[in-house]
């Protein structure tokens, strides 16, 4: 292939994928205790369905949906509910959470298997996905069944599975594709069926040749599914960039992928969809990459939802001397943590710990020197410089006029800024001060 598919602008950060890319997915130990926040997704929080003292089993519903855009939550262990109160979460908010203490037996509820799932109707599929509490597992955590129920006037003709994994360090999706390619493809086929779509694509950045190989052989006899090696560039895995790279379609300003007839789902989501539809298994565990120079033994682990980060880090040999920063997610879009006692949730793709020498401080940022570097890299074609200046000076309305709300906080501008300006925080500040 002469030139691989990609989008315009973007950056080339150091990837450091080698820390964990060869590590097979290991199963994390059964935790003594889980903390399950009622809100792990975009939309209305779940309503607790248990009270303190209740016995629960693995896979049991402990929180039910409270609206169309909402998602139920399940227990990932068997044991007893010991608390329902506000606990810190990885996005920095205090959220009502259900704390369950393990009884060590790990007893499951009976899952409804569907060996002949190929015969299910789109509505049955969506119900199964909804009941399994599946949300986008790339990080945004938007309820999947909602994404699969677009309004009638939006005609969807393409499903894209996002295996780009453009965030540096993270290798969870990479390992999933390399180790479970068949399941991912089945998940994609189920998603296509639920939308009545004939065209499936899987985009993978070229730095994962083994994943591309595995996926290629998994789709060898599928005529409607195509594997796309993509240029290694950040943020290749952003929905809009992926659609641009694979379909050449530009999502309009303030628009959504469905405006150009596409639905994008993450690799992990595809796997969860398959498991939910085929085995009736709710989303109670996910693959997490625990990596970074601050971790003794980087790994990819299947972690139960609700396991505390401190637990997981301990199983990876703990922190090295001089570890300075812990991030939930990747280095570009993840959230810095102030305590390790926050749970892994449905959207946690990685736990990244940085040692001192990797860490860049933005404490002493200066005024914008108008170098224009940020404008060169913004994948949305925005002018991050002027947006940051408006935010700094409090002209939030002007920022909005300049398409502030098209910014999806990828952090490319912050990465290149020589003045070390905390660009994404400026964007978030402005967004918090005006209505979209």
């Amino acid at each position, binding site marked *: 292939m002469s030139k691989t598919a990609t989008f315009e602008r973007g950056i080339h950060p150091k990837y450091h994928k080698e820390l964990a890319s060869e590590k097979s997915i290991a199963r994390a130990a059964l935790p003594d205790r889980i903390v399950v926040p009622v809100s792990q997704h975009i939309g209305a929080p779940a309503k607790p369905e248990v009270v303190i003292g209740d016995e629960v089993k693995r896979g049991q519903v402990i929180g039910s949906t409270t609206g169309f855009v909402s998602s139920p939550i399940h227990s990932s262990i068997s044991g007893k509910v010991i608390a329902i109160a506000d606990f*810190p979460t990885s996005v*920095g*908010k*205090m959220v009502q959470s259900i704390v369950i203490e393990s009884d060590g037996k790990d007893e499951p509820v009976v899952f409804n298997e569907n060996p002949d799932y190929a015969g299910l109707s789109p509505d049955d599929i969506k119900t199964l996905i909804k009941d399994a509490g599946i949300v986008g597992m790339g990080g945004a955590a938007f309820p999947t069944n909602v994404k699969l129920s677009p309004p009638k006037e939006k005609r969807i003709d393409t499903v894209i599975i996002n295996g780009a994994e453009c965030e540096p360090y993270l290798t969870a999706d990479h390992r999933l594709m390399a180790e479970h390619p068949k399941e991912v493809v089945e998940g994609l086929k189920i998603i296509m069926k639920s939308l009545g779509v004939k065209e499936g694509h899987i985009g993978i950045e070229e730095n994962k040749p083994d994943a591309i190989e595995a996926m290629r052989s998994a789709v060898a006899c599928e005529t409607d599914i195509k594997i796309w090696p993509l240029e290694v560039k950040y943020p290749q895995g952003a929905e809009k960039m992926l659609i641009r790279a694979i379909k050449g379609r530009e999502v309009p300003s303030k628009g959504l992928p469905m405006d150009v007839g596409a639905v994008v789902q993450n690799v992990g989501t595809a796997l969860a969809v398959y498991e939910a539809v085929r085995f009736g298994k709710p989303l109670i565990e996910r693959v997490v990459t625990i990596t970074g120079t601050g971790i003794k033994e980087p790994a990819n682990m299947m972690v139960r939802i609700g396991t505390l980060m401190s637990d997981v880090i301990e199983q990876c040999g703990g922190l090295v001397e001089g570890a300075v920063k812990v991030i939930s997610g990747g280095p570009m879009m993840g959230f*810095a943590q*102030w*305590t390790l006692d926050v749970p892994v949730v449905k959207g946690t793709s990685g736990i990244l710990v940085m040692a001192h020498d990797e860490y860049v*401080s*933005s*404490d002493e940022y200066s005024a914008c020197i108008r170098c224009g570097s940020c404008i060169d890299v913004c994948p949305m074609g925005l002018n991050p410089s002027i947006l940051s200046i408006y*935010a*700094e000076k409090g002209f939030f309305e002007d920022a909005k006029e300049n398409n502030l709300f098209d910014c999806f906080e990828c952090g490319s501008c912050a990465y290149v800024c020589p003045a070390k300006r*905390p660009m994404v*925080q*400026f964007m*978030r*500040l402005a967004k*918090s*001060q005006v209505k979209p």
Partner: protein
Amino acid sequence: MIDLNNRVKILVFIVTAGLLLFCSSALYAGVGGGVEVRETVDLIELVEFTAVFLLGISAVFGMGLAFAAKKFAVKEDPRVDQVSDVLAHAHCGACGFPGCRQYAEQVVLNPDVKPTLCTPGGEATAEAVARITGKVMEQTEPRIARVFCQGGCTKSVRRFKYEGVKDCKAAILASGGDKGCIYGCLGYGSCERACPFGAISMND
């Protein structure tokens, strides 16, 4: 001001001009009032007549207004204006009056209203008001509000090292701010920068 677009403005202009022309030509032509009706209308003469007519009317009304303004003028103590000039003009209400003008009136007219009430103006304003009104200015200590909770920087710990925009609205976006006490003032001084009178200052 009512916002009219150009087309509407032009329309209004034409209609007004037309009306004027109509009225004056009606007068000129002697329609109504039993005056003899003219056969033809001389345009130049009509315009001249209109101009003279308008000038005359404006002169009459102008004089009327001028006379009324003199005759019915309300006498105001000139000191009210003087006091008003030295107030801080924040219209903040700290003096207890709806606005600066009301305070100026009351401090001049009402012997019980103290000259020291304009807080943003501070001591200089109080002195000036006292001088103009001839009231005695009691020496007042400036009253300063101070946060005495345990949430200050010297008492409450920081949960983490915050790096980023030095603004409380921005800091609160990062895990609810770095202050150990969730009620404590974050201390990045957004309020200090927002107050145009320097009423707030950050120390510990």
